[in-house]
């Protein structure tokens, strides 16, 4: 803006035949010119860099945060899982920290547990869809699983029913039955949308 006004006023002075502006910058040698430009850019750039760096640093902070390592969490009693091979849904309740808020006991996810006839072993599948992270439902009649988002279907043991948008079967979780019948599940989350089961969100 200033430059343009300046040019305009120069032109008008010339047109009106007045004497040339004695305040016009002298023609400098290119070395001084270059130094001035370089220093200006360096100073200005440096000054700008400080707030940007501070901002970016804080913005990248989430990369330092990792989800808690998978641990065994008590879920229910063996008696609550009928031995009929039909999965039952259970909430995973644990303490949860969301940035500055700490929840002492919160449902943080869900698992499907099932037990075969007469067996003391429990199979555990996470209810989170390996496709895009939606919540997998048990179909009415409990014959298969289906994700309501993109219709990924799974058999009762978590296998893919083709064709399916899901790249892998439902994620199984390690499961432990204690002496007193307490069922504990090694709770963890896995990356969605890839063929391998990799821990992460």
């Amino acid at each position, binding site marked *: 803006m200033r430059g343009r006004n300046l040019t305009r006023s120069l032109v008008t002075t010339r047109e009106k035949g007045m004497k040339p502006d004695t305040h016009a910058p002298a023609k400098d040698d290119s070395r001084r010119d270059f130094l001035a430009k370089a220093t200006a850019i360096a100073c200005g750039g440096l000054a700008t860099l400080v707030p940007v760096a501070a901002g970016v640093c804080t913005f990248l902070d989430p990369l330092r945060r990792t989800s808690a390592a998978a641990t065994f969490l008590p879920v229910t009693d063996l008696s609550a899982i009928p031995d009929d091979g039909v999965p039952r849904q259970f909430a995973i309740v644990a303490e949860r920290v969301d940035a500055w*808020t700490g929840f002492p006991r919160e449902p943080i996810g869900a698992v499907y547990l099932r037990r075969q006839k007469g067996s003391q072993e429990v199979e555990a599948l996470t*209810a989170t869809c390996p496709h895009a992270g939606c919540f997998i439902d048990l179909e009415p009649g409990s014959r298969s699983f289906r994700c309501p988002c993109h219709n990924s279907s799974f058999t009762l043991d978590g296998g893919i029913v083709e064709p399916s948008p899901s790249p892998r079967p439902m994620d199984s979780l390690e499961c432990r039955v204690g002496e007193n019948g307490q069922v504990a599940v090694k709770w963890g989350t896995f990356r969605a949308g890839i063929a391998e089961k990799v821990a992460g969100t």
Partner: protein
Amino acid sequence: MKTHDSSPRHGIIKRFGNFLDDRTGWRALLHEALFERVPGGARWRYVWGSTLVFAFMTQVVTGLFLWASYSASGQTAWESVWYIQHEMAGGWLLRGIHHFMAQAMVILLALHLLQVVIDGAYKAPREVNFWLGLVLMMLVLGMALTGYLLPWDQKGYWATRVATNLAGIVPFVGPQLQQLILGGPDYGHHTLTRFFALHAGFLPATLVLFLVVHLALFRRHGLHAKQPITKPDGMFWPDQLLKDAVAMLAVMAVILGVILVPAVRTMLAGGDVATGELGAELGAPADPSQPYAAARPEWYFLFLFQFLKVFEGWGATGEFLGAIVVPGLVMGVMFLMPILGNWKLGHRFNVAFTLGLFAGVAMLTGLALDEDYAALWTDKSKLAEATRLLEETDGDEEKLLAAVGGDAKKASAIARQFPEVEKLRRSEAFLAAARAARADAERAAELAGRPERIPPGGALELVRNDPLSQGPRLFAQHCASCHSYVDPSSSDAGANVAKASAPNLHGFGTAAWVTGLLDPAQVAGPAYFGNTAHKDGDMVSFVKDDLQDADIWKPADIEAVIAAMAAEAGRGESKTPPATIAHGRDLIASDERCGACHRFGDNDTDLGTACDLTGWGSREWLVGIITNPAHERFYGDSNDRMPSFGKAVEGGIPPLTDEQIGLLADWLRGTWYRP
């Protein structure tokens, strides 16, 4: 330098204008802004750009005012939006305009793009401006995507989960990118603060920057006139601006219409309009532990959602292709359009590509809608047989052949209908989920509106402690495998009750329920003891024999007992005279009547033979029986199959917590907050 005449001949306004112009040159600026030639005169087809600017300005204005009342955090986002929507004066209108103008912007963007491509306005020297336009388009879509999450309701939460999970499959940096977007390893406060910063800060600021350059370049090149020019040139002000302004008003009228039509309809039907229900909807508060089967993106992203389904069976490759490669390629072609346009057939290709793209998007959107809403327009009677056979045979070919009596032709005709049936089923499931979501949303809003207001822990706490919301879920999960909960007056009550292997608990604790229990025709039926081990028990024979002896049990006595039982349960006010209830209580306690088996109050009957009827059906009684039905107060050793939901072996975990049992008891008793 030329200065204005500031003599007092002119009015004060004129003189002030001159004063300012001398120092700022505003007249020249205004002139530059308004006096633009429009080759061939003003036209309606040029209004899209201006209406887009208008739409954006509307979003800035409404957005800033929304910002003044919004609070981005896990415990306050939904709550503050609820407050804007339901409590603040005109909040529903403000939110409604912001919500629907965002959708209008997407439509206007599409029209603007279409007009630019068809008119060839992207060609030299306007290439850079076309690219700027594409960047602006992506910024607008980015703002739409980030805005969807901000109310932190179930709808936004689950839709965003899908979107951010897709970010995670970007090659090399996916997981890190996802973590940066989420603000940590999981969804929470920082997801909201980041989305809000993007939605109201980074993206609009960038958009303004690009918009300024876009408009400056537009002015530099002048309007790209539609050929051939037949009419004389017009001026931007007022010729084109008049048309623009009319279009802006029309857009606003449509938005207001969308917001207000439901209200007008309600008023015409003679109902009361609740302004909180108008405009943008607000789902139930986001709950990561609560499935949301109605999860869908906003309608303008439905095509992308549907596109992912195209790659069914491709696994991770399909996901990558559908979510990243193909959209990337499409954007790539669009960026190349100005260059492609230089070739002989380039322009035709560009127009065909754009039209094809729009047709594809429209088709995918239609398919997505059809899949979800098919049940609304499918003729179910035509599929009735196939539906039944699919249920019976589970799609097994041999079983199907047997079921149709070996008629191979018929079997294959039926099998061909199976995909239709599956589609119908999915659609019905979606519609049911959408209805449930609406009910949850209404309930959450109702709870938030209690005089006690929302607790510091947020609205989710309210929903999780609400018997009406949680009761049916807990019942379905823990009780419904044996018990039914069916209103006896509903049309298919009989069949649904017959399926259950334990009593129907609908209306438990009411006089009607007890009346059924003491009815010889019902006591051994499926609604009571019919499908249990007590089918041939003492109670059934008592009702069938003893109770029928009119010499001992006068009808008035039975009614008194029923009234007394209902009074014990204490569900609502009773109209029965207190004397009758007192008489009933005496009969229950008497060791010649009910008291022969049942403990009641301080009668001397031993526990363990039959249920203690003291406080029968009260909250305390119900909590007790759900916690441990095998307790001597209840069924003791004769307990049939009912598990002890509140009791666990030493060191174990009971199936239900005390809070959950309380919620179930309250729900069964019909005790919950009503506005």
